[in-house]
């Protein structure tokens, strides 16, 4: 589904990604962990070209996303993204937040987009908030709406960048529950998170990033129970 080879990215003189290789298969949930500043967000943002990269190659669903003839907007239609800080559109109702892209980008008729939106709101448990504005939502509700908004485009892959890091602790569970359900339905997901319980339970594979490299990868039990590298061990000892 996604193939990343030798991905390199610098901000000025600071090399943030130093050669990332990764392969994400269809219906797989890949969890990315690692210390702050290790390049996890940058890696994720390169996958839908929110961040341009300097070297290497990313192939999504057979399309080289950086080739000249590739329309990046078409690629992004298939790659949903959920941000740490929700980024809901504050001047629109919850329903309009969700239907805007299907209507304007996918060119769906409004009825179809609204039906889809209501179905998704039901799925994330927020159908009664359809006409509310984002300001009136709690963090957990806002993030569930953001997930519904991304899903409305019917993407093939979903990227999550620390979706629960900005939430009060009591709201983390409701968001993780939605993500878990999504994983169970077979969505291909790449999730950057510090929720090790989620990584272990839902992840098919865990990538440990440090200093711009993927230092170690494996199944959750390989990484959490039998980490091979010193850096993985020391990171896990701090967060577990």
């Amino acid at each position: 589904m996604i193939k990343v080879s030798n991905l390199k990215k610098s901000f000025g003189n600071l090399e943030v990604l130093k050669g990332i290789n990764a392969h994400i298969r269809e219906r797989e949930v890949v969890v990315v962990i690692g210390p702050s500043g290790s390049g996890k967000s940058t890696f994720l943002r390169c996958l839908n070209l929110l961040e341009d990269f300097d070297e290497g190659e990313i192939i999504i669903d057979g399309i080289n996303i950086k080739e000249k003839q590739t329309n990046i907007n078409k690629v992004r239609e298939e790659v949903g993204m959920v941000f740490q800080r929700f980024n809901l559109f504050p001047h629109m109702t919850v329903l309009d937040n969700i239907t805007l892209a299907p209507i304007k980008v996918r060119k769906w008729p409004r009825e179809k987009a609204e039906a889809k939106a209501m179905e998704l709101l039901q799925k994330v448990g927020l159908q009664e908030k359809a006409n509310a504005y984002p300001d009136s939502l709690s963090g957990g509700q806002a993030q569930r709406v953001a997930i519904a908004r991304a899903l409305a485009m019917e993407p093939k892959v979903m990227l999550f960048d620390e979706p629960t890091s900005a939430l009060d602790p009591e709201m983390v569970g409701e968001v993780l529950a939605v993500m878990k359900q999504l994983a169970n339905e077979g969505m291909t997901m790449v999730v950057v998170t510090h929720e090790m319980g989620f990584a272990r339970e839902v992840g098919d594979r865990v990538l440990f990033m440090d200093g711009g490299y993927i230092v170690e990868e494996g199944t959750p039990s390989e990484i959490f129970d039998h980490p091979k590298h010193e850096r993985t061990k020391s990171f896990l000892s701090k967060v577990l």
Partner: protein
Amino acid sequence: MDFRFDIIQEYAPFFLRGVLLTIGVSIAAIIAGLILGLMIGLGKMSTKRLIRLPFEWYINFFRGTPLLVQMLLVHFGVMPLFFAQPSATVSLIVSLSLNSAAYVAEIFRAGIQSIDKGQMEAARSLGMTHAQAMRYIILPQALKRMIPPFGNEFIVLIKDSSLGLVIAAPELMYWGKAAAGEYYRVWEPYLTVAFIYLLLTLSLSKLLHYLERKYSNQ
């Protein structure tokens, strides 16, 4: 000190003519300034340095030199290139438009850049083009924030239109000066003129407050 209301009364028709011209000139100039300013603001936000440069210098020039100088240049320098007999009113509108466009451009740019960049990223991540993201996400939020500074700019422009006096555009201030010259009086004409400007600017700011309140309720 005696205050001769009869002077004001006698000049009332001229003040009326003047205030109508002031209003007309100000509205024409703010509309032209808005349109031109939006284009200059967009130009200044270009990621290409070479495209940005002329817009930056436009803004530098019109914000960094006195409006009075600009007006004299327009009326006695630029307009005669195109018209045998340049109209002072047209010169006034043109110079006010060019000047306010520079301020509008900055208001526009600041408004757009004040929107959290997560908004653009969220829109793009959904597959929207840059233009779609601007139109549906960034501009609606930014325009709301631009109402107060645009309003201020309009108020400044109304007051600045009084500089039309020096090129003999028959706006309100011109008639104030004319009355002062005719009767050798200071207080009556200038206080009257000041009072009328105050009426204009205060009503405008009331209107703006109303608009602001209306649009802040989503």
